[in-house]
């Protein structure tokens, strides 16, 4: 690396000593990470605050309502011919998202091995899982709007805030997944075309990319999974 990323001794300190020296080094702070990855982390931090605001507003309305909160276990139950199974669709969606996180990890791994075809294949699989997640969410929304009559301002099962919070939180998360799927397809195309092998310049940044961009993409995708972990716990299970 041409950049000065080492200390005088030629070695970077690790752990807390490294934390202090990196931040006081009068150079770039985030050493040993590509700028795109550091910036993705900063973006994800800001997104963390956005989703926190949603979940905190959910906590506030649920704690302050004097009307009963609907039982998510029953609302999201689904019957396959027999008795309704509680929360089954949400459970399937959770497993799909975790599976897609696993395939994303494989894509990143094969990217660093410069295996163009396998990287693209696993990006495609990840995108398909993501798209099926959004599809199931569309099904769930349809069921709630058409069959149950839940609206952002009203809810026949109890507290009207339930509808507002449900549509806002899952809608915003589903939007993130949809953007992620598009993002995945863009990266997949770049991988397939060999952009990262020949250092072709990106259409937006005008910088030549490398397989590190697959990892940056992966960070976003795992974050979407991470947010779902919290939504699943607080909205569906609580």
């Amino acid at each position, binding site marked *: 690396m041409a950049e000065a990323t080492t200390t005088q001794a030629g070695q970077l300190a690790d752990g807390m000593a490294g934390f202090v020296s990196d931040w006081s080094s009068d150079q770039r702070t985030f050493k040993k990470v590509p700028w795109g990855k550091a910036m993705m982390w900063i973006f994800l931090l800001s997104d963390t605050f956005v989703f926190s605001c949603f979940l905190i507003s959910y906590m506030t309305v649920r704690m302050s309502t004097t009307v009963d909160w609907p039982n998510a*276990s029953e609302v999201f139950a689904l019957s396959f011919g027999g008795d309704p199974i509680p*929360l089954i669709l949400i459970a399937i969606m959770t*497993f799909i998202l975790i599976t897609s996180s696993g395939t994303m990890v494989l894509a990143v791994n094969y990217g660093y091995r410069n295996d163009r075809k396998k990287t693209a294949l696993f990006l495609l699989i990840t995108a398909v899982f993501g798209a099926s997640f959004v599809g199931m969410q569309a099904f769930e929304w349809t069921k709630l709007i058409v069959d149950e009559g839940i609206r952002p301002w009203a809810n026949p099962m109890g507290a009207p805030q339930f509808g507002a919070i449900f549509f806002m939180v899952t809608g915003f998360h589903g939007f993130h997944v949809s953007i992620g799927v598009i993002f995945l397809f863009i990266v997949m195309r770049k991988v397939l075309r060999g952009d990262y092998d020949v250092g072709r310049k990106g259409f937006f940044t005008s910088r030549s990319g490398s397989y590190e961009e697959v990892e940056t993409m992966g960070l976003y995708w795992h974050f979407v999974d991470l947010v779902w972990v919290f939504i699943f716990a607080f909205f569906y299970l609580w």
Partner: protein
Amino acid sequence: MADAHVEGQQHPLGIYIKIWILLFVLSGFSYAVDYLQIQGYLRWSLILLFMFLKAGYIMAVFMHMKWERMSLVMAILIPPFAILVFIAIMSLEADWTFLTRETYFTEAFFKLFGK
């Protein structure tokens, strides 16, 4: 070309597969909490436990936090603690709203003063 990627995170596949399986198991446990209809404090603590374990493993291994330099780890992990203050403030606020509603949204109150 491969030599140029000195900054990338390369790790053996084994650890990813193990964490992947672990995430499935933990998700199964979370779902079981609901399926078995565990209630009360046990339910809430189990939900939180599985949630934090899952979030932690995703961040540490899948997002490579475990292998990043401390300067990046601290920049990302410390700011979210501000959220705890926000949670505390809003739960006080929510309690206050609830008590106010319990006091004033009553039939006796409506009879006297109308809706």
